[in-house]
């Protein structure tokens, strides 16, 4: 039996610290997308099986290591647990995404340059689908910064784009008045 080497999406690229900001990769976790069938009620069953019920639009719910993110109209991501049998379309998304956290004092300025969202209006636990550069992304506001999720194949592009802006924002902050 061959032993395969498991590599994270941004292996060898992160973490990176530039100026006051740090970009780190989050470890890959078990993740499933859940799209309830029309009119189906899945929240109670999920709560019973995982301890977490479905969040409102644009929000996340969490308990211990399990989290559910709202990710689109009628679609949720269950992270850190295996979903029970539900009247919903369930797809395994584990390993399919690259998840990074951008933290630090100037993180909002960096995001403002790559993302069209009004991030000042986002509070902790708010989730939005939007763009980072030309990539479609899931953005979650965390206590220590922004979590950004993109398709795994975009890991290198995401790291590159954010790095460029982190360097630029830091350089501009160092300019004399």
């Amino acid at each position, binding site marked *: 039996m061959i032993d395969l080497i498991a590599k994270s999406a941004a292996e060898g690229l992160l973490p990176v610290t530039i100026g006051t900001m740090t970009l780190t990769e989050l470890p890959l976790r078990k993740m499933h997308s859940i799209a309830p069938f029309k009119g189906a009620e899945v929240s109670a069953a999920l709560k019973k099986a995982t301890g977490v019920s479905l969040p409102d*639009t*644009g929000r996340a719910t969490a308990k211990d290591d399990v989290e559910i993110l709202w990710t*689109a109209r009628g*679609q949720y991501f269950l992270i850190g647990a295996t979903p029970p049998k539900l009247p919903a379309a369930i797809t395994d998304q584990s390993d399919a995404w690259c998840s990074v956290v951008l933290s630090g004092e100037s993180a909002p300025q960096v995001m403002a340059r790559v993302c*069209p969202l009004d991030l000042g209006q986002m509070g902790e636990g708010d989730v*939005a*689908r939007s763009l980072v550069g030309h990539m479609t992304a899931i953005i979650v506001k965390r206590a220590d910064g922004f979590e950004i999720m993109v398709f795994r194949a975009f890991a290198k592009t995401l790291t590159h784009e954010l790095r460029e802006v982190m360097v630029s924002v830091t350089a501009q902050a160092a300019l004399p008045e």
Partner: protein
Amino acid sequence: MRINCPICGDRDRREFYYLGASDYLNRPAEGDLDAIHKYLHIRENPAGVTKDLWHHEAGCSSWLVVERNVSTHEILGVELASEVAK
């Protein structure tokens, strides 16, 4: 240009994909060739208020009916296509 998505809120135009006139919601019965021809090819082209289908592609993936004035770029209303088609 910004579109106020009923699900996500006020968002930048680059998150949306434009399809065309909201006439696409009124699909004629099968076999009615004249109606199908009209449905596919005949469009009003007003220098004023139009209703179009937009997809919130980089957002919640909802189809929206956006009423806007093509002369002034003013957006007059946004509704979920699923509500309009009911």
